[in-house]
């Protein structure tokens, strides 16, 4: 993304590279992570909300664990699984030509794991709260299960789902612990939180303040957007 926007233009509008580069990497990684999380989280949320099979609670708990674990623990497990010897590392080398630790892809994986529970839990709750009589009416109309999901259930649950995706994006954007461990702070994988850590650690307090303010603004926009979703009428 940085390559698409000339540095001269960024400088002319007052955005220095030490802000834009980590911001670009953060937005790019969080965007990719959110797309993956949205697809997987909404699908699993639908299955957990609509399915009637044993073990649903266990599955939801397992996928929600990153919410309760320190991000460093998640990062440690990812580092040892993705970077340590074993079949996963072998598969990474086979597929990508190199291990995924200390790469941009590694960051995306860390952010997917960290943000997945937010999308999953918001989506599951929103889908479970849809009045089942609308789905019954759709069954009577002859709609298949897939069409009911796409035309009835998911649109009726959209507010909760969109809030979950927004929260997941915010979580991915703000992740520090897991991202730091999996990326090792290499330049191509320095996100905003890591850049802030580096600036503060190496005494660049002015830069740290600006980086913190940008993240503060991003967090405000995301949370305000989520709260507005709760206030607008359903349809």
């Amino acid at each position, binding site marked *: 993304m940085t390559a698409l926007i000339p540095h001269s233009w960024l400088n002319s509008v007052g955005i220095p590279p030490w802000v834009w580069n980590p911001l670009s990497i953060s937005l790019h990684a969080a965007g990719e992570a959110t797309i993956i999380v949205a697809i997987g989280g909404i699908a699993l949320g639908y299955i957990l909300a609509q399915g009637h099979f044993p073990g649903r609670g266990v599955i939801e708990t397992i996928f929600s664990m990153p919410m309760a674990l320190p991000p460093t623990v998640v990062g440690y497990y990812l580092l040892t699984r993705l970077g340590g010897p074993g079949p996963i590392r072998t598969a990474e080398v086979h597929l990508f030509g190199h291990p995924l630790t200390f790469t941009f892809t590694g960051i995306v994986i860390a952010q997917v794991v960290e943000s997945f529970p937010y999308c999953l839990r918001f989506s599951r709750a929103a889908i479970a709260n849809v009045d089942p009589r609308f789905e019954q*009416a759709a069954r009577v*109309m*002859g709609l298949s299960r897939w069409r009911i999901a796409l035309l009835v259930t998911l649109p009726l649950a959209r507010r909760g789902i969109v809030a979950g995706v927004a929260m997941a994006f915010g979580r991915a954007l703000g992740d520090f612990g897991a991202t730091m461990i999996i990326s090792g702070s290499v330049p191509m994988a320095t996100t905003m939180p890591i850049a802030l850590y580096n600036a503060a650690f190496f005494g660049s307090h002015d830069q740290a303040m600006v980086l913190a303010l940008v993240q503060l603004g991003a967090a405000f926009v995301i949370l305000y957007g989520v709260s507005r979703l709760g206030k607008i009428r359903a349809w």
Partner: protein
Amino acid sequence: MTALDVDVTRTIGEFDLDVAFSVESGISVLFGPSGAGKSLTLALIAGLLRPDTGKIAINGRIVSDRASNVHVSTQERRIGMVFQDGLLLPHRSVLDNVALAVRQASGRQARRAVAHSWLERVGAEDFADRRPGSLSGGQRQRVALARGLAGDPALVLLDEPLSALDSAVRRELRNLIREVIISSGVPAVLVTHDAEEAEQLGDVVIAYSDGRVTAMRDVERPDDVGPQPESRDGNRSQ
């Protein structure tokens, strides 16, 4: 051939439903107090629930039979249904709500054309492009009636379609419901706890009490074309 044969039992908690009746064309009214099992019967006919024992046939086609483990899915029963509160999809236009129920036409434009003709028949074409949330209760039920009939159903079920409306609108819609259903030729089963409504809408009234059919009788009409009901033992009560 009878339009509908029902001979089922179903227990939910402390409540036992045990009913049997057959109806032909026209509007058959399941009449009785709340909690008598009328709406449960509709849910069994629609396939939203399965009976514990017994069988259900629509136009001679067995759609549910516990003895031979037959259960035709709700989607494949070709049923139209009008719910008490309409249950129109709030995120779709009135026209789209009806078009979604159209089974007999393929292609979006063809389905919308069928839907539009049904909206005209129920006097709802003026708000085809509006969302259901902007309609009055009576307007919503007109659209729900169009949706219930638009899919060329073998049977249409109406679950207290007028009970949430005020009396003036209720009177107006009674005439519309009877006129549209009879002219469509689709047999209908309507649930109500309103005696006046049962008399005005029904060709046959099947009285329910505590999960049982207690009486069945024809409603006398000048142009008497109503169905010929039979109870489980083949007797008809007058």
